């Protein structure tokens, strides 16, 4: 069942287009991450879905009801949505319990509302802090109160605007996982806005990538990572080694070997993007042939750094030539100056027609 559907949303501020013909849907129980660099229009899209911005062009449909567009504007308080902000926006003059009970309908008795709020707070593990004021809580606690407050009225749609970016890195992963399981448990549809590709990969059932107000690509996280539509999507989700080449004989020549041109017109310039983990190093430099690898060559290690769970190695195939970044698992990185055999994993190597101009 479709919970939220944005249809051809276009939005401008003072004549400047912020959101350009965006269509997106979120199903019940699904977490969709709207991701992109800052200023790409993702937050505006979220605000339009929430009803905090009036639709200028297009339609917003929540649970089969047009709530924006076609001359309608249902104000946010009547849309049955939950919203979590980057700064949490907890009401500073209300205690934790009162914050969570704020959105519970007035027709319920005070006791009933308190009980619901208490239950929600127990669920996020803050049952002991009901009497506290927001400013006395840690960042992680405030985030969970904000989540409990948004979930308490049982919204059919959750909208989250960079909900984790205010947290310490150590805390972030745990809170993200807790949040995800709560959202899944409640079965609500979630649209989460973030600028962090890793967060999107981690949280999303589906990712929608935005750039300059437009939707660039949409799909499952692994699809976006492994089958990017263009260089932007490819570079957004990881570091890449970038170089330029020309298609000759249906293949592309690179310092790391020859790649398939993937049907790009003969003689045209192409962008070659190679993920650091696509380059495999073999220090023993044995001549054994790896049937999995399509291309291979030798390289000199320029520099190598152990970063803990993985190591970064910089290699060069020709003297004074371009330096490539290689990412290896573990701490066993080859020393600088040593020579290695290189094999290239074509599934993490991409060839796109060069963008003219």
């Amino acid at each position, binding site marked *: 069942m479709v919970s939220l559907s944005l249809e051809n949303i*276009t939005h*401008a501020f003072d*004549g*400047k*287009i912020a959101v350009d013909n965006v269509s997106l849907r979120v199903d019940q129980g699904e977490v969709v991450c709207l991701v992109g660099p800052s200023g790409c229009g993702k937050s505006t899209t979220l*605000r339009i879905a*929430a*009803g*905090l911005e*009036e*639709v*200028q*062009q297009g339609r917003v449909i929540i649970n089969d009801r047009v709530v924006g567009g076609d001359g309608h504007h249902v*104000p*946010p*308080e*009547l*849309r049955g*949505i*939950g*919203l979590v*902000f980057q*700064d949490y*926006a*907890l*009401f*500073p*003059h209300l205690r934790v319990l009162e914050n969570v009970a*704020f*959105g519970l*309908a007035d027709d319920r008795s005070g006791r009933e509302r308190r009980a619901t709020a208490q239950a929600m707070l127990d669920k996020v593990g803050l049952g002991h802090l009901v009497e506290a004021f927001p400013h006395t809580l840690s960042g992680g606690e405030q985030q969970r109160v904000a989540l409990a*407050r*948004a979930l308490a*009225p049982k919204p059919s749609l959750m*909208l989250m605007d960079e909900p984790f970016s205010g947290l310490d890195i150590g805390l972030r992963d745990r809170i993200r996982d807790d949040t995800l399981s709560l959202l899944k448990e409640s079965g609500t549809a979630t649209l989460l806005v973030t600028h962090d590709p890793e967060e999107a990969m981690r949280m999303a059932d589906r990712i929608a990538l935005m750039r300059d107000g437009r939707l660039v690509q949409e799909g499952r996280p692994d699809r976006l990572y492994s089958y990017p539509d263009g260089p932007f999507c490819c570079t957004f989700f990881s570091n890449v080694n970038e170089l330029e080449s020309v298609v000759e004989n249906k293949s592309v020549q690179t310092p790391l070997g020859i790649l398939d041109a993937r049907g790009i017109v003969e003689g045209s310039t192409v962008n070659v993007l190679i993920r650091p983990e696509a380059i495999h190093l073999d220090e023993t430099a044995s001549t054994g042939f790896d049937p999995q690898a399509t291309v291979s060559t030798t390289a000199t290690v320029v520099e190598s750094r152990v970063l803990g769970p993985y190591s970064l190695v910089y290699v060069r195939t020709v003297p004074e030539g371009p330096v490539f970044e290689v990412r290896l698992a573990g701490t066993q990185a080859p020393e600088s100056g040593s020579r290695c055999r290189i094999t290239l994993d074509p599934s993490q190597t991409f060839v796109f027609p060069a963008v003219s101009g």
Partner: protein
Amino acid sequence: MTTVGDTARTVLAPVNRRFRLNRWGIFALLVAGMVAVPVLVVFSFVFVPATDVWYHLASTVLSRYVVNTLWLVAGVSIATLVTGVGAAWLVTMCRFPGRGVFEWALLLPMAVPAYAVAYTYAGMLDFAGPVQTMLRDLFGWSRHDYWFPEVRSLGGAFMMLGLVTYPYVYLLTRAAFLEQSVCVLEVSRTLGRGPWNCFLRVALPLARPAIATGLALALMETLSDFGTVQHFAVDTFTTGIFRTWFGLGDPAAAAQLAAILMVFVFAVLFMERWSRRAARYHHTTTRYRPLPGYQLRSWRALLAAGFCLAPILFGFLLPASVLLVWAIETSDTIFTRDFMDLVWHTILLAGVAAAIAVAIAVILAYGNRIGGSRLTTMGSRIASIGYAVPGSVIAVGVLLPFAWIDNSVDAWMHGTFGISTGLLLSGTIVALLFAYLVRFLAISFNTVEASLAKVTPNMDSAARTLGARPSKTLLSVHAPMMWGSLLTAGLLVFVDVMKELPATLIMRPFDFNTLAVRTYELASDEQLAEAAGPALAIVMVGIIPVVLLSAAIARARPGQPPA
């Protein structure tokens, strides 16, 4: 790319919300319209054919009004600039004994209405006053043996006004100096400039917009003043309006005088708006560090302390002490039935005016926040020029249309039903409250708006998505968060209404006296000592916001840990 943008703009234009109105917007425009009425009425009288009275005024007193007003403006400018800027520089950049006290005590003269200061000096310095009596006793002089400056003069008037208005310049200049961050000054020191050179070539030019704003506020007070110039017999527009209205009974000529006064006011208002805009570009950094302070020693320290003490002594300590002594001398007149009536009337008027002004300010500011159209913003800007308009001008601008309404209703009722309704609005508390609202709405609006701006818009969004309507959001989220500021706004209006003399004097209902009016009446009868009781009451209440302001200053000092 431009073509894409342009077509999109034309397509999107019909749903552009900038000029759309909702209930909040309509309210904002309505209030703005009502507040603008008095000023518009006054200006409309420029087109009314001049009367004989006007020609008489023009040929006799008008030039004197203009000359006196210009002299007052010039004198007050010099007095407030020297005192305000000098004191601000000393307390922010130098270290000398008593600096911590001067920092807030320099605001104290704001608590005393100019007319109260004028009465005390008149009482002290005139021929029968204690100073001249003492001199005569000491040296055995008699009346014609010596020369003594006449305090009831133009010079006296600008001294009095300068003494109570310099805190505006001081307050804003001090804030500007603090904001300048030491960095700019340190850089100029390392580039080989001495302290004086720094002050003149870096600090002063950077603070210029703030100084201009402070001066504009001081001059608005000066142009509005009625009590001082009336008592010192200095003919200006405010006294002229009063006399033309009551003495000569010519409202049209009074309105025409008011229109000329408004030209002066608009010049000052323009200066203020311009300097506020310029101030934005003079902000050098957002990083603060404690100001180092030049340590002053021996005679320099003494001089600095003396410079700061003088305005406090003459602007507050001395007049307040004199009022206190007089009040004690005449204490038998204070705790009377009549005096209690005065207090009650004053509290009633000021309290109701404050409550209305705050309520309307909240709705205006909140409407602006959620409605946010250009029309409502413009409306609230118009609604906030009232603070520049002198009370006497507002009185004329309110009474004329109210009288017209009364007469029209009366004529219609008389013609239709044969009943005479008489005066429904003019001469009632309603008219007076309306005048206060026009004059003081800006004060409450600015306070409320600043406080509302501190609440992140995400609060609104959070409340709205949790099912609260805008009005509920206002009541259950914003109002409790802004409670302190609402009280402050109310208090500021309360004190200003209490001090306001000309509007109250002209518009009060028959036999309805307030502390300010009573002070004025007694002083006019040369019962200066008897006037001290009500005047002291005004000062005592007026000191509350000054104390709050001082406390806020002591607390919030950029770059320094809260005390």
